[in-house]
């Protein structure tokens, strides 16, 4: 349902994506791993049009992603995003954050949306925080609200941009737990992450990106347990055994 064909992207002189070709099937969980600055996040940001790309083509459910076209709204309502720094709206309550998109973008009936919003908060274990404001929550709670906000759009896929990187270690588990449940329920997910355990247990496929290209890809367990490419081997050694 998500297709990337030979996607190139430069920031000024710096070419961060040098021809990315990949696809994500419906119901699939794909993890993208790689060193920082390798272009992982840029791929996600191109998929929902937060960044433009210079060459190649990206499509979502057959719809071309073009951030300057009005169709981008359609793409974004089908593919939600969860950010590293949560990016919740601090001036609105937790429940208001969750229902903002369905109410004001999709213009769904209020009562129905509120009910769904509460159900989603319960699903991520935060039903009792509905009326709190985001700054009153821990990072892990905020990220779970952000996931509920993404789900409220009833997307066909969710993009996760290092969802646990800004969290205290003891809060990571709650967020990963919610994500694992989503994966079990069949949600299509693309996850940029440094959590190799999550990638191994939950992902169907892993892409290893370095220097703007896909160096190696394959089934999660195969790639993480028996990496073929020396750069993959080197990266995984550094991540799994930093000392």
């Amino acid at each position, binding site marked *: 349902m998500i297709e990337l064909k030979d996607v190139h992207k430069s920031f000024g002189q710096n070419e961060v994506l040098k021809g990315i070709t990949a696809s994500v099937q419906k119901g699939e969980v794909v993890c993208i791993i790689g060193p920082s600055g390798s272009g992982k996040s840029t791929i996600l940001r191109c998929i929902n049009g937060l960044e433009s790309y210079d060459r190649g083509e990206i499509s979502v459910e057959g719809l071309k992603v073009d951030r300057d076209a009005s169709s981008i709204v359609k793409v974004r309502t089908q593919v939600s*995003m969860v*950010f590293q720094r949560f990016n919740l709206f601090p001036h609105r309550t937790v429940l208001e954050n969750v229902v*903002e998109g369905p109410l*004001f973008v999709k213009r769904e009936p209020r009562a129905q949306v509120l009910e769904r919003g509460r159900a989603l908060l319960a699903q991520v274990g935060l039903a009792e925080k509905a009326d709190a404001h985001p700054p009153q929550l821990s990072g892990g709670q905020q990220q779970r609200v952000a996931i509920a906000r993404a789900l409220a759009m009833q997307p066909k896929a969710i993009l996760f941009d290092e969802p646990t990187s800004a969290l205290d270690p003891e809060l990571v588990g709650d967020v990963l737990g919610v994500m694992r449940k989503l994966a079990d329920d069949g949600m299509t997910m693309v996850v940029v992450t440094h959590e190799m355990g999550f990638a191994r247990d939950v992902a169907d496929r892993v892409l290893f990106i370095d220097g703007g290209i896909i160096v190696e890809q394959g089934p999660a367990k195969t790639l993480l347990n028996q990496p073929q490419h020396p750069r993959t081997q080197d990266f995984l050694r550094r991540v799994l055994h930093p000392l």
Partner: protein
Amino acid sequence: MKGFWHDAVEFFPILMSGVVLTIVVTIGSLLLSTVLGLVWAMMRVSGIKVLSMLSASLINVIRGIPIIVLLFYLYFVMPDLGVTLSALQAAILGLGIAYSAYQAENFRAGIEAIDKGQIEAAQSIGMGWWLTMRRVVLPQAVRIVLPPYGNVMIMMLKDSSQASTITVAELALQGKLIASSTFKNTNVFTMVALMYLTMSIPLILLVRHFEKRAGKK
């Protein structure tokens, strides 16, 4: 200060009629400058080059002309171009335009202070430019903008006295008229000063309240 209380009682009704006009001019030009300032600021951050350049040059032109000259222009020059304004209309228009430049810069600073992640989050749930502004950016920018906005209100109250130069009979002009006909300069202008101060104090307290609230977040 001989017979201050006696004079105070005698001149109070006349000066109060000036106070009413001062308040009308202040509120009128405050509203106008707020609306215009918002328009200039939105043009500036619209991301559309023509609009943002137009807004930037407008702001510079307005900022570069003294308020008093702007008032003279509206009141004395516009009739030659076929547009006749009453003194009150010209005063509100002139002060409103003059202050819109400062309002615009204040609003823009508030808008640009909003974290870029907020805008990305809004876009990622499918919001367009206007919805992002209305639902996400402006409500947060208001908190940042309010303390300087309160200061603009105080400055505006005092600068409304410039309307006296185009015959608007507000507080300063009423004071001048009484003083020049009675020669009781000390008593009259002390009263005028006290009346401006009395009107400023609630605004000063309001600014303090805004600052406290902004500091809490």
